[in-house]
């Protein structure tokens, strides 16, 4: 009898101790959880602060560059350089830059803007030559009495990535006589209408796309133009 009582008592003692231990572990766990939570919250706050600072810097840069571009455009339009008109232009450019500084540079890729502009200017004569060639071709097609046209719609998948280069390629295709970009799908597939098999084949060869990719510094191709540029740099180093 006494022995059983003793065993029961020890059992109860052990269970109480076990309960206390569990409780202590729970408390400790919640404490660590709380501290880690507060730490992560603080970290998140710090990150948000840093991100906000970066964003503010980027937006102020955007504001400044938009203002400079608009001021140059104003000088081009106005043509009057007395102090009154220049200050008017300054105020107007500030207002417009404040209203829409996030539109002009919405999603800019990393790249040297000056180099892009240089390459774009170098691309223009080639494109004009291309327009002249296909202009003559289309005129021949249309003016010949048999009208040997074969209108067809074809699709090709582009390797370009940003929306700027998509737009540049689409407008280049549309500017060339005989071919029109109908649509760009979200996956980057161009739907193009061509008047003739030859025009479609010219476009499918992908020279224009290569040039556009070269302008906007996209895709992993090595271009002859790049090699030539580098050769000049190495020549200067020697």
């Amino acid at each position, binding site marked *: 009898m006494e022995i059983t009582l003793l065993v029961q008592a020890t059992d109860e003692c052990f269970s109480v101790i076990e309960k206390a231990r569990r409780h202590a572990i729970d408390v400790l766990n919640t404490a660590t959880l709380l501290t880690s939570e507060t730490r992560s919250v603080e970290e998140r706050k710090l990150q948000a602060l840093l991100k906000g600072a970066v964003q503010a810097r980027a937006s102020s840069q955007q504001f400044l560059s938009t203002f400079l571009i608009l001021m140059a455009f104003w000088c081009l339009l106005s043509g009057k350089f007395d102090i009154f008109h220049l200050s008017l232009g300054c105020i107007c450019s500030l207002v*417009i830059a404040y209203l829409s500084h996030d539109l002009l540079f919405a999603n800019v890729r990393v790249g040297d803007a000056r180099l892009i502009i240089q390459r774009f200017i170098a691309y223009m004569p080639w494109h004009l030559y291309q327009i002249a060639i296909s202009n003559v071709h289309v005129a021949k097609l249309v003016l010949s009495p048999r009208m040997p046209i074969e209108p067809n719609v074809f699709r090709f998948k582009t390797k370009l990535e940003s929306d700027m280069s998509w737009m540049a390629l689409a407008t280049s295709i549309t500017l060339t006589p005989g071919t029109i970009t109908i649509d760009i799908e979200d996956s980057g597939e161009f739907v193009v209408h061509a008047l003739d098999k030859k025009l479609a084949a010219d476009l499918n060869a992908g020279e224009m796309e290569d040039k556009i990719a070269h302008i906007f510094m996209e895709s992993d191709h090595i271009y002859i133009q790049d090699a030539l540029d580098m050769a000049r740099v190495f020549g200067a180093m020697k």
Partner: protein
Amino acid sequence: MIHNSTDVIIKTVARIFIPFIQLYALYVIMHGHYSPGGGFQGGVILGASLILLLITHGERVAMQRISENWITILFSLGVLIYAGIGTLCLFFGGNFLDYGVLAPLLHVSPAAARSLGILGVEIGVGIAVMSVMVSIFYNIARSGPYRNKGTTARRES
């Protein structure tokens, strides 16, 4: 209700052109006394730029940029500027919109005062015209053919 367009070309072109269009509109307003144009034309171009934003980027983006309350405030403000300058001339003893009498207030010669007065009136007219255009377009866009289908919408094929 005008939804966001999914077309990449149109969106990109509109995004790049809109600041230049707005600056051109302000140029037309400010140079109204040297070249063709003036308050009304500049206001229409400014309104057209906002309409371009609305039809390419959707109603929500345009409303974020300039809400209907702001539009209401702006077109009252435009009329206030116009009528205020006119009435100011009455107080200085001239006729309505007779800017020459504002010369002592602005400390310039009467000819320059006329030029500045016309500039102020044109800014007022431009703001009023822009906000009224955008307000009309907002109203049309919010109760378009989707709201009461089949009354105005008919397509010829």
